[in-house]
């Protein structure tokens, strides 16, 4: 079953066509990686799936119905996006992890669970979020999204600028999420990583998206 379907989707930003006639299916309960060079439209595609922006043309469906018929706030609760820059909100790690549960008034939630699922110990809860390292921030950002127990995780370069150990922890955490039934869309420019973690790979280049088995991609390279 497809969680998302895109048919002829196009999007222009500042007069430039970023996505052009994209046809793509995101299968539920699987990890789909979007790989491609910088500026190829991967992040824009992710933002369309979270409804931070709307396509200019084509059809985008979520669970078989037009995404525009779904309330954007409920959609974002179900399909949480982890942006590339991992901006921390002012306050402690706990404040950050509990942000979404606080605004959605979710009471049966333990921040330690989300933190551990993202590969961080509970000792981090009291730490000042803005003083964390890049790798720690990435994992707190992941935990912040996991707090919503989303149906889909939309990850924008979750391991960029992160040391190999942290990267490995994030990969393992996300794969566990997938095994638990979460659909994952993973934007990366690391082809080897895409091959390692994904069930499906989509090659995004010059605004077009093509399903790939990984063999057409430069062997083990990085865009």
């Amino acid at each position: 079953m497809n969680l998302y379907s895109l048919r002829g989707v196009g999007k222009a930003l500042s007069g430039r066509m970023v996505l052009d006639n994209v046809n793509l299916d995101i299968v539920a309960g699987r990890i789909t990686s979007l790989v491609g060079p910088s500026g190829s439209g991967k992040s824009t595609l992710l933002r369309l799936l979270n409804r931070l922006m709307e396509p200019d043309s084509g059809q985008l469906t979520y669970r078989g119905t037009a995404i525009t018929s779904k309330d954007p706030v409920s959609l974002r609760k179900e399909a949480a996006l982890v942006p590339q820059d991992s901006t921390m909100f002012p306050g402690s790690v706990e404040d950050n992890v509990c942000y979404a549960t606080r605004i959605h008034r979710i009471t049966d939630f333990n921040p330690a669970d989300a933190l551990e699922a993202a590969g961080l110990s509970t000792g981090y809860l009291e730490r000042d979020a803005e003083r964390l390292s890049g790798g720690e921030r990435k994992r707190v950002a992941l935990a912040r999204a996991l707090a919503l127990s989303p149906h889909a995780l939309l990850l924008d370069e979750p391991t960029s600028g992160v040391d190999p150990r942290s990267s490995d922890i994030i990969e393992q955490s996300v794969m566990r999420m997938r095994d638990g039934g979460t659909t994952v869309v993973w934007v990366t420019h690391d082809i080897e990583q895409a091959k390692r973690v994904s069930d499906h790979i989509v090659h995004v280049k010059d605004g077009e998206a093509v399903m790939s088995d990984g063999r057409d991609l430069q062997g083990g390279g990085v865009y």
Partner: protein
Amino acid sequence: MNPGFAQTPLEGLVILASVSILFFLVVLVSSWKRVGIGKDMTKGFMVGGAQLALVSIILMALIEWEGEGTMWLPAAAVMITGMAIISAARSARRSPDMPSAFRTTAASISLGSVLSLSVLLVADAIPLRPEFVIPLAGMAFGNSMDICSLTLDRMTREFQTGRGMIETRLSLGATSSQAVEEIDRMAIRTALIPTIDRMKTLGIIFIPGAMAGLIMAGVQPLVAAQFQLVIFLMIVGGGVITSLATVTLARESFFNEQHQLQDWV
């Protein structure tokens, strides 16, 4: 009661001309020292003086009409509408890229000023007379304009520098108002700090204009102080309403109905 300044406008003009010597000396010194403000100071003095003269002439006419019933009211309404339009246009310049900025500033400034002024009238703190209504409307609109400008300025800057944080909140299912609640609070606080600071230093560092004017006109200082406090309550009340209205209305320009940031931000 005569303030002892001048008996007639002509006498006042002579006094003003003699005191202006000080002003022109300052302009000369600033030109000599190449401070670069001489031209602006002269222009400001001329424009300000002309505006004050115009307002005084209108006020004199309104006070004349006061004896003939409510004839002065429509003219005062036109004058207050003018204050609203000019203050809103000036404040809207703080965010030139924002669509419908004028609509936001006009509604916020008018709401804060008219509401606070109405409270004074309903509470019988001031009589419904042009010599009270027009100057106090000027104070209310002027202060609300400053607060609206500061609020809008801070909001625009926070949106431009904090776009990443706002979108991160949105992407976790926050509504547009939840995503910017900290920015709203910060903008309101920043805009009101000068007013609150002025209130805290009332009488210590300076004696405000209305109180000073009343004392010079021979009113008992205690009564003048009470009246000044009434004015400050109007200014603070109107300012808070203006600032709250500005953040609420401006938010509609920063976001669309789908809780997405607008392209211009």
